[in-house]
């Protein structure tokens, strides 16, 4: 990587930035899920690695969250943007050099930020835990260079229109920059009290709603038509998805604080808008599943489609939960329980991760012109990831329902802890399976780069999957 930082832009091979982002994202995924598994072990067995400040649960928990969101998920997004945006514009990335620098500064900044969090330097605000210097760094050296590269590539495209994926990419990088700058105003300007509490959740809601969800969906809009060869079922439904994300998904931030003393009008408004999240969700899922028409054998045959469609199918329970669990009728029961933890993992480890993994698999093979080293290991990764995730999700959902029941029946709290114990062990097992699957993935991608069969010019990786 270092040799390209100071090379001339023309001398950097196209796709270099995407490859670096791809491998960085996998490594961060391993780090993030490793920390997740470690934290889960502590919840199941509280005296596991005990009495040390650095390895205390409170110091590790947010490092897991941020390694996964800003390392794995966001870097996989950057990887997808670096190769899909130019491909859809029939052009090259605007600046490969900026992309390489972006990846370098991203890894440096994230390592620094996570180290600070780990030592206890935190803003004390969930999801915007980073101290404000790191937030500023993220906006200036991570989000903005990415945004400039994506926008300039779209502007320099050699196609008439802009495809659905690129609307989402272009808007996503803009919105995440705004969310970072506005969502951290409590720290920039020392906002306090309810405004601080509300803006914390405004940030948390929108970093998911205006960055992770739409960009993950945008990736599926590319991979499914590209691999199956079917055109997108409906461009118009894509429009509906895009506009309803911007209008409906950006508004329900207050539904994260339904049981807190916020103004009642705000909670009611957020709750109604929260149900309307079903509009983009149904548009997205139906559009993608209808695009699969006649090509459903790919769901079995092809690794990338297997990942993508699994992610799309997981969006159904995700949005059914998301739309309704925040209404007053349901929220009072499950608020603050493991149900929400399960839901967050359904969004990030289920829906979103599966879509991004497909993009990383497909992109790395396409750019490096190397066929996947081992399809068997790829399938092993898929199943281990899915089983690990499902174990986690189901056990945490059950734990959440136990906590909810205990909450309303005023059961002594320690009895809830005792009742949850088996599910905490199951959660740890699930997380460890996910962690293990990612090590297999890194090995597979590493061997693909070193020993994968070369893909001849004019062929696509998925066409050669079963050829020797």
């Amino acid at each position, binding site marked *: 990587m270092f040799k390209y930082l100071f090379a001339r832009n023309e001398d950097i091979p196209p796709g270099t930035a995407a490859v670096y982002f791809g491998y960085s994202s996998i490594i961060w995924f391993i780090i993030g899920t490793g920390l997740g598994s470690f934290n889960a072990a502590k919840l199941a067995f509280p005296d596991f690695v005990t009495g040390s400040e650095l390895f205390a649960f409170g110091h590790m928990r947010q490092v897991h969250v941020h390694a996964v969101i800003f390392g794995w998920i966001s870097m996989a997004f950057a990887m997808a943007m670096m190769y899909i945006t130019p491909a859809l514009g029939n052009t090259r990335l605007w600046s490969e050099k900026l992309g390489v620098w972006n990846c370098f500064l991203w890894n440096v900044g994230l390592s620094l930020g996570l180290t600070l969090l780990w030592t206890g*330097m935190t803003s004390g605000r969930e999801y915007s835990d980073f101290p404000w210097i790191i937030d500023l760094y993220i906006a200036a050296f991570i989000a903005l260079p990415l945004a400039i590269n994506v926008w300039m590539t779209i502007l320099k495209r050699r196609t008439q229109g802009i495809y659905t994926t690129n609307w989402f990419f272009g808007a996503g990088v803009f919105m995440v920059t705004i969310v970072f700058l506005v969502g951290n105003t409590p720290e920039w300007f020392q906002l306090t009290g309810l405004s601080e509490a509300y803006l914390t959740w405004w940030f948390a809601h929108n970093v998911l709603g205006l960055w992770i969800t739409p960009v993950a969906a945008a990736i599926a809009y590319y991979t499914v038509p590209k691999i199956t060869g079917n055109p997108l079922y409906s461009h118009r439904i894509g429009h509906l998805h895009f*506009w309803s994300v911007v209008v409906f998904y950006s508004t329900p931030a207050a539904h994260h604080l339904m049981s807190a003393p916020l103004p009642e009008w705000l909670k009611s408004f957020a709750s109604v808008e929260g149900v309307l999240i079903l509009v983009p969700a149904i548009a997205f899922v139906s559009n993608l599943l209808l695009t699969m028409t006649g090509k459903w054998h790919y769901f079995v045959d092809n690794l990338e489609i297997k990942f993508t469609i699994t992610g799309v199918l997981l969006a159904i329970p995700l949005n059914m939960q998301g739309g309704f669990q925040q209404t007053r009728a349901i929220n009072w029961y499950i608020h603050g329980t493991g149900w929400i933890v399960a839901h967050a993992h359904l969004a990030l480890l289920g829906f979103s991760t599966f879509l991004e993994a497909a993009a990383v698999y497909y992109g790395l093979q396409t750019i490096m012109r190397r066929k996947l080293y081992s399809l068997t290991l790829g399938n092993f990764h898929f199943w281990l990831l899915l089983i690990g995730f499902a174990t986690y999700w189901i056990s945490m959902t059950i734990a959440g329902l136990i906590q909810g029941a205990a*909450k309303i029946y005023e059961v002594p709290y320690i009895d809830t802890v005792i009742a949850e114990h088996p599910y905490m062990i199951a959660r740890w097992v699930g997380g460890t399976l996910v962690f293990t699957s990612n090590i297999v993935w890194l090995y597979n991608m590493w061997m693909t780069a070193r020993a994968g069969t070369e893909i001849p010019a004019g062929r696509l990786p998925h066409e050669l999957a079963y050829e020797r």
Partner: protein
Amino acid sequence: MAFREYKIGTRLFGVALGGSMMITLYFPTIDMTSVQATEVALRKALSAGRQNGFAYEDPFVTGEGKPVTVVLRKDPVTGEKMEPMEAYVFPPGTPFPSAIRHPRTLGSGVKELSLQQGRIGEADESRGAVFYVDHATYQGEKLAYIVNATAIKGWQPEQVLASVPEEDKKYIGTGKTLFVREQCWWCHTLLPEQTQDWQYFGVPPRLGDFNSEGPTAFGSDRKAPDLLHVASRNSSREWMLMHFFNPRLVQPHSIMPRFDYLWDEVDANGNKIDYAAWRKAYEEYEEGKRIYPPEVPEPHPDSRIRKLVDFILSLK
């Protein structure tokens, strides 16, 4: 080839996102910044200090630059006995909370009383100040407001600190910073829910209970009891210390981590704490080789645990 420029689309995008931010940021903020501060909010603001997360006065989040809460039993100037009252001492250079720096965050009424009767506008960070909370009637409404005792009674911070014995000093601001730093709020919420927590965890907070507080650290993922009113349920310092050192000493099924490292190097008598020996003795107790677990060391007054427990016991 004429390229599409998406002029309408980009403008509509601006309108949509701008409109959304207008409704979700601008309108609620107008509403929330006009909330009138309650007595709870004033006491929290004065005991916690300016900021309990990452801040320029405290970049390593160890609780630097925070006020000291004291219980006054006699007048610090005259030495006369008086009804015990809480005062909040800001030694010179300690940053004031938003409540003092920006009195408009107190909401109408509280702001006027604090400025006119409490004279908080005269407080000067570089010289320090002492505050307390008093009550008065404003337009027929009984309100709590902040009094600048340095301006009104001439109490100087050093003088007040010198007149108070160590056991009447509470490092609540530093303790709250440690609560944020050690991330107690990942498991213990500070937010009894409005719907069903009344009986078990007490009354949910009110709209005006948060003015000037930052971070609010509500917590979202409750894996342990809510702590907003914990000291009303259990105010035993002994119990808290045992529970922090090793929660399994008092609650065998607890999944809380041990926070023995907050005892730091030495105990109350200045002896070095031998953690390895303690753990070995505890293991023997667990294996049934000892009848009683080893004694939890009495913490040094400067240790972090003392300050954290000060904060926990202030949650009434």
